[in-house]
Each structure stands twice: as C-alpha cells, then as structure tokens.
C-alpha cells in the first residue's frame, strides 16, 4: 500500500493502519518502512478492532484479523475485505478499483509524525526482508505447481510477494 500511496490519495482516500501495537512500536514501523500514513495503536482492541468485529482472541493473547475497509466521506462503510490470514490480502489494484467506483476527488495526506520509535527485539531489518519474501514467493510458487487446487492461490500469492519484494527493494537501506 505504501508504494502506491500516491495513487490511493489521487483516488480520494487516505490510509491508516491499525493494530494492537503501542505507539512506540508503530513509530518504529513507520520509520523502518518509510510509511506515508499513520499507524494507530489499539492495544486490547477496544477502540476499533472489537467494534469493527475483527478481534481474534485465539492468537498472541488477542490481535486483529487482517482486513481492509473503505469508509466513505459520509462515514458509511463502503467496502470490506476480511482476510483469513496474513497472506490473504486484497491487491492494490483491487482496492483502487473500489475507490474508482466511488468517484471521489483527489486528496492529500500529511506525512506521519515521527514519534519516539521503540523497535521490538524481534524486529526484522529491512535488508532481511528481501530474502524472507523471496522464500515466501518460492514456497507459494512450489505449492501452486504441486497442488492443483492451490494453483490459483499460489499464483496470486507469488505475484503479491513479487510486488512486496519490489517495494522493499525501493526502500533506503537500514
């Protein structure tokens, strides 16, 4: 999403990320990934994750199910994609198609304030993300080739990993 942020704002939407992570952790992610949008902290899920019906109590003491929602300028929920897991995300092209259907004017989004970054001990360095994603891409491709039922999902995930690798390679090195 970050690498196509200009297209998203041109289509009339601003982006915010939401998770259980606290502001210090989120500030570290904004800095590391050079995110052009803010990350909001919802530890415990009461501020948004639970009200939006996305609370997953089964993992890590409670986290959000991945999801992408489009809220219109009128405050109405216009579109929602609930994901089964981290690998099940709508593509940027799909999101842009939904935004185009709303026929909105272009907007701008201020860069996020830096905050006080407090990275996790387990945080992966940007330079380590490329081999990680290459592994995910190869695995998705191999499964798609071997399991006929997984052919379509394998191809979709392979393409998504290729997009993410390109986005990470475009980031400054840490």
């Amino acid at each position: 999403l970050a690498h196509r942020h200009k297209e998203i704002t041109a289509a009339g939407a601003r982006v915010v990320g939401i998770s259980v992570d606290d502001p210090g952790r989120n500030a570290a992610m904004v800095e590391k990934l050079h995110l052009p949008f803010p990350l909001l902290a919802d530890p415990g899920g009461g501020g948004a994750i639970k009200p939006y019906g996305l609370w997953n109590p089964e993992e890590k003491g409670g986290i959000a199910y991945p999801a992408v929602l489009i809220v219109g300028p009128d405050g109405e929920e216009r579109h929602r994609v609930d994901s089964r897991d981290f690998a099940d995300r709508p593509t940027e092209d799909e999101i842009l198609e939904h935004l185009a259907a709303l026929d909105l004017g272009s907007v701008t989004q201020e860069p996020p304030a830096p905050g006080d970054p407090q990275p996790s001990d387990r945080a992966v360095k940007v330079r380590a993300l490329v081999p990680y994603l290459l592994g995910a891409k190869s695995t998705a491709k191999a499964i798609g080739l071997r399991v006929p039922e997984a052919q379509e999902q394998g191809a979709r995930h392979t393409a998504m990993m290729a997009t993410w690798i390109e986005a990470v390679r475009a980031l400054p090195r840490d």
Partner: protein
Amino acid sequence: MPAPRLTLPDQSGTPWRLADHRDAATLLVFYRGDW
C-alpha cells in the same frame, strides 16, 4: 452501514479521529501487529 466511531493514538501519541476525515474516503487497514 455507518462505520463505528474511531479515535486512537497515532505513532506519535496524537489522537486520530475518523470523524475529522469527512473530506475524503479512509482506507482502514487492520494488521495482526505484534511484529
């Protein structure tokens, strides 16, 4: 369906309100977090 109200601190601790963004669409991206 109206989206539930939403006010949460951003990465700098500043409150971010969905209601302040009625001039545009908002893409709410929920992450697993804890990364």
